[in-house]
């Protein structure tokens, strides 16, 4: 059954229960269904073919949810996009999947640039789509048909569009609900962006279960998030490690009545055992679910049962229902316990592939197994511990940043001969971007100039926080940059006069 059919069933069961709260706006399941009806009726009138890709460029809002499901109702494929991204990146994704239309909020700052950069894409106003009501008519989609494309890296040269089928989304949603049972009595205050896999799964699991989602814009005002939890008597909260770090460092959970809180979920990178301990102390009534997953697996692959937090600290747990996990060495053989290898995953939640990119797909999918690129070992009880990552993707808060994308932007600057980026540890965000630049002879660049150039072309979290200048970049014999060597400063010996090694921005 598709998510949309499950949602239809939920709407029939509890039309007057609240589904989404956003500021002063409170939508019941009936209201949400009627907004889906309005949006799908208007989309259908455009006579796009089945399987048409439709971009969704919206902040978290009831309209986001309505449009997402409306695209499914007309047989389309949703392409959620990052509203903080710049036009070139957004257009790169729209063009890559040959999108027919883009649903966007009026007044999006990149809209004019987007019309030029993606001229074939029909621009649709989100509010207009959602206002008014209509009956939802849909035919159940083919389970194997693509339902959603989530772009995992903004690499301008080669975007990777994780293509998830209706079955992928449905299976993963139900697997999550099997270990984290939710009911119409639940309410989650959500700060995770829906356009990423984690937020996407929070949206689906809660709506399918008939729970209430309270949308808070972000963690900029952490106390406001706690106030919302208290006022709405929230039972759940989900975050990446930095969400919890911000919440505990700039707000005081003890000052709020949070007795209703019964579950916390954490994914999106390893949380230190110290932070996990602080989270449990700050929210003593709530169970903490430490989880692990990938966009390529719809969202979730493993979870640590909360009752094992004390005897398995630092573990991401065991496979979720319906998923098999193996740890392989380089030759594709399973490793013994306590030996580090790469996690391979199999299950009906594993993506169809990367959109229109069979080569990249072949590199990660093999006989139904997903090669995750994550390095891990198992203990004697089969609990998994992540040891590192084969991929060079930088994990900054909830974001994944491709180093190539930042490198391509910096390379446009006059005076840059060569550049490579990597992630360096950051107490709050996990990692931030560091750029190492080789200047042309006579070239001159300041940290600020590089950051300004990046800020004009990239969202804030992709702007390098640290920059170093070097004579050469460390490379392998075959010429590939060894990004892991960029983290320390040894390679910056003999830097030019224009800089003094690594410059750090914003403290």
């Amino acid at each position: 059954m598709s998510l949309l059919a499950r949602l239809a069933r939920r709407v029939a069961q509890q039309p007057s229960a609240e589904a989404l709260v956003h500021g002063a706006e409170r939508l019941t399941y009936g209201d949400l269904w009627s907004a889906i009806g309005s949006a799908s009726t208007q989309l259908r009138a455009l006579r796009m073919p089945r399987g048409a890709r439709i971009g969704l460029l919206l902040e978290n809002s009831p309209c986001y949810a309505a449009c997402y499901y409306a695209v499914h109702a007309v047989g389309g494929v949703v392409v959620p996009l990052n509203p903080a991204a710049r036009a070139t990146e957004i257009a790169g994704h729209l063009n890559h999947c040959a999108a027919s239309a883009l649903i966007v909020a009026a007044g999006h700052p990149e809209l004019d640039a987007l019309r030029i950069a993606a001229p074939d894409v029909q621009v649709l106003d989100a509010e207009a789509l959602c206002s008014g009501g209509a009956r939802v008519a849909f035919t159940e989609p083919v389970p194997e048909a693509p339902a959603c494309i989530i772009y995992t890296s903004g690499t301008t040269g080669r975007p990777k569009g994780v293509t998830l089928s209706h079955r992928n989304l449905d299976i993963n949603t139900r697997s999550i609900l099997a270990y984290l049972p939710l009911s119409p009595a639940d309410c989650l205050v959500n700060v995770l962006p829906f356009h990423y896999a984690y937020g996407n799964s929070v949206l689906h699991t809660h709506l399918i279960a008939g729970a209430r989602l309270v949308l808070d814009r972000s963690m900029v005002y952490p106390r406001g998030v706690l106030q919302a939890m208290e006022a709405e008597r929230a039972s759940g909260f989900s975050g990446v490690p930095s969400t919890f770090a911000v919440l505990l460092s700039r707000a005081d959970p003890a000052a709020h009545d949070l007795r209703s809180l019964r579950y916390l979920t954490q994914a999106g990178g390893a949380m230190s055992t110290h932070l996990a301990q602080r989270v449990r102390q700050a929210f003593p009534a709530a169970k903490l679910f430490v989880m692990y997953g990938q966009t390529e697996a719809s969202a979730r692959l493993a979870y640590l049962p909360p009752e094992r937090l004390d005897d398995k600290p630092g573990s991401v747990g065991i496979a979720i229902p319906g998923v098999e996990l193996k740890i392989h060495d380089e030759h594709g053989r399973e490793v013994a316990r306590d030996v580090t290898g790469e996690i391979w995953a199999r299950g009906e939640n594993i993506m169809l592939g990367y959109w229109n990119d069979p080569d990249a797909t072949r590199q990660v999918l093999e006989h139904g197994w997903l090669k995750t690129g994550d390095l891990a070992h198992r203990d004697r009880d089969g609990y998994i511990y992540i040891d590192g990552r084969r991929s060079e993707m930088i994990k900054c808060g909830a974001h994944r940043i491709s180093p190539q994308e930042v490198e391509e932007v910096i390379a446009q600057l006059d005076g840059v001969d060569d550049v490579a980026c990597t992630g360096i540890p950051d107490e709050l965000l996990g990692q931030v971007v560091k750029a190492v630049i080789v200047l042309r002879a006579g070239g001159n660049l300041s940290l600020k100039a590089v950051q300004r150039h990046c800020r004009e072309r990239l969202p804030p979290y992709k702007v390098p926080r640290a920059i170093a200048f070097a004579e050469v970049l460390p490379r392998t014999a075959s010429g590939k940059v060894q990004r892991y060597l960029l983290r320390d400063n040894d390679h910056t010996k003999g830097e030019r006069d224009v800089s003094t090694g690594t410059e750090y921005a914003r403290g």
Partner: protein
Amino acid sequence: MSVEPRVRQFLLNNYLFTDDDAALGNDDSLLQKGIVDSTGMMELIAFLEEQFAIRIDDDEMVPDNLDSVNNIVAFLARKSTTRSARAGA
């Protein structure tokens, strides 16, 4: 330098990476315009506490106090009035 240009300069230098004064309006919402994210806010708080020798309480971290240059300037003025009133008491 008075309060407003110091705050403006910090925001321009650290979030917009520019000296162009026109890049930031005094009523621009730092959140809506995507100028400050959650870590940016922590840095802004640290800057204000250090530069203006104040302590910003968790319950003062609200948009009314911090979401634009004008809000910040007015907030700092209120803080300094409270402080002098306390000092005078």
